């Protein structure tokens, strides 16, 4: 008989012994672990949010200095919209609204294009099979992981080259502007939309589409009546994500806008070059709130149960 089964035999009917010392030690480890788990999120969130909290708090600070908090005021928010800013700066509400409207236009067009293309990419990745699909699947994440500065520079070089060739071919000179920014933004937001839509699509029961075909719906009606309505929350979520990313983007915009086209982040950066003013804090706070709301909606749409619609 093997030694292990021998010892098993011996344990049958033996009185239970508990090592109290070891039990005490193990219970202590468990307590420490529980306390650690409780404080872990507190520390993490502190690191994440402390700088932003400071920004928000000082956007309401009465004093111009960032060193002391003297009292609450809404002056800086008012200043943004009345064009009054630190005496030395070239601020005007008109320029601010100009850059904001640029941002919104770019955001809407980017969202529209990248939502359509991103959804198509997701469909093709989940619902069909072709050579190189796995490669495409991997490359899809590239824009998510490669440094944005690389993207910005590569787009700038790309457009430069393109415009040069165009000039050689037609003699026409093209210039960067809103359109190049939109192309740049579409290029990196497609991935985000595709990833979100694909997750939902992969989660969706393929029997639902089969059921539709079984009941007499051709491929187009199956998409329109079943696939699309069930994907819609993910498509909207992906779209909101694209919109937020486009609205907040600085680097890609900076490299593709050329001179004379400002978006809100680029405009704020321009102000910052002069001095950090409380008005910048106020503008930034508004941007934080707007982005948070959009991302919140996006997340809640993604979180919806894929089988419940």
């Amino acid at each position, binding site marked *: 008989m093997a030694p292990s089964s021998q010892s098993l035999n011996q344990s049958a009917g033996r009185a239970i012994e508990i090592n109290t010392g070891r039990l005490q030690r193990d219970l202590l480890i468990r307590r420490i672990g529980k306390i650690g788990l409780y404080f872990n999120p507190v520390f993490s969130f502190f690191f994440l949010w402390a700088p932003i909290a400071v920004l928000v708090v000082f956007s309401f600070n009465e004093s111009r200095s960032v060193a002391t908090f003297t009292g609450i005021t809404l002056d800086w928010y008012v200043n943004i919209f009345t064009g009054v800013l630190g005496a030395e700066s070239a601020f005007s509400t008109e320029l601010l609204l100009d850059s904001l409207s640029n941002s919104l236009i770019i955001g809407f067009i980017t969202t529209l294009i990248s939502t359509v293309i991103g959804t198509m990419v997701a469909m093709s990745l989940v619902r069909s*099979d072709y*050579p190189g699909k796995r490669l495409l699947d991997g490359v899809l994440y590239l824009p998510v992981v490669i440094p944005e500065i690389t993207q910005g520079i590569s787009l700038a070089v790309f457009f430069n080259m393109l415009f040069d060739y165009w000039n050689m071919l037609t003699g026409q000179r093209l210039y960067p502007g809103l359109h190049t920014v939109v192309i740049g933004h579409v290029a990196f937001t497609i991935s985000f939309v595709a990833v979100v839509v694909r997750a939902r699509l992969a989660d969706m*029961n393929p029997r639902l589409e089969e059921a539709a*075909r*079984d009941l*007499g*719906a051709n491929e187009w009606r199956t998409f329109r009546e079943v696939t699309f309505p069930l994907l819609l929350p993910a498509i909207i979520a992906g779209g909101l994500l694209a919109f937020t990313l486009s609205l907040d983007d600085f680097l890609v915009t900076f490299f593709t806008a050329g001179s004379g086209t400002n978006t809100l982040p680029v405009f704020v950066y321009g102000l910052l070059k002069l001095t950090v003013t409380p008005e910048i804090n106020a503008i930034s706070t508004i941007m934080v709130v707007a982005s948070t709301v959009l991302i919140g909606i996006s997340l809640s749409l993604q979180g919806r149960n894929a089988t*419940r619609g």
Partner: protein
Amino acid sequence: MAVYDIELRHLVKEFGGAERGKRGYQVRAVDDVNLQIEQGEFFALLGPSGCGKTTTLRMIAGFEHPTSGEILISGRPVQNIPAFHRPVNTVFQDYALFPHMTVFQNVLFGLRMEGTPRTVAAQRVEEALDMVKLGHLAQRKPSQLSGGQQQRVALARALVKRPAVLLLDEPLGALDLKLRKEMQLELKTMQQRVGITFIFVTHDQEEAMTMANRIAVMHNGKVLQMGTARQIYEHPGTRFVADFIGETNFIEGDLVARQAGAGTVKLPDATLIEAQLPPDWSADSGTVTLAVRPERMGIVPEGEEADMPKMPLSVLTGMLVEMNYIGTDTRYTVRLFDRLDIAVREQNVDYEENYDFRVGQTVKIFFPLASASILHRD
């Protein structure tokens, strides 16, 4: 030639290989299946998971394209007709109800795709929902229904299209045991009422025997045997079928003589046993496998042979190694030839009057000629 509702001719489905452009990796999920199913039949495709039964059903529905062979629906080849043009409808294992539509909209869907006028369609949907007794839940979403109710909606959604054939893929698999038994009878009643041919896929032999007129037992992509529940249970053709349908004892022996429909088998302890031969048997000698159902055997202690019924019997001697009381029956395990364990089941009609068996004692087990069959090799 007779026209069948469904006819499968040399149907083959291979996965992998050519489809993915890779060599060497190929699975024959369905291997030369031939079936003829008549109008109004309740037909079961029975087999363990991976035997090809679901793939066969999916080819009839049009979700998979056969590698070769023909599918005929009412005499018409359909392998190049897409699912949405075939006169068959499917009840899916997980029901596949559209989660964003109400029960009413789910059932209406198929008629909407046909372009049935709205008022006619609405009336037919109501009829279908009444038939499955769900008229009062028409405005609910599928997620607000129980499993059994969802199952009925799936049934109504398929039947409202008035298909030539209804396909059911493990329709009761997700229900608990009690509800499953209820739904088995309900499905059977419904099938008799609407008169539509039902083909259903299951791995549950009891379910197949309860509901189906005819059963095809599948294994490794092939149909091993086809027939009524009684034919398959009483005369299993192969060892796999005998083992899969109910419980069976297998005893190896040598075929020493052959008469009309029966053969004499010599067992390792030199006992001679008479057993039934399959109709298409050809060999005159060689090693064969005998199958005997546990409930077709009797058991008595050694020395009590006088209590055995007065009829021609095969009698084997062995040692009782285990005895389990399981309510309706008592199950005895008897060791033959010092190595082969045989199960014997006796009904506890009057348990108090049974012999006082003890584990370790020598016993006699007996069975009539008709209870032992010789099997084909798989």
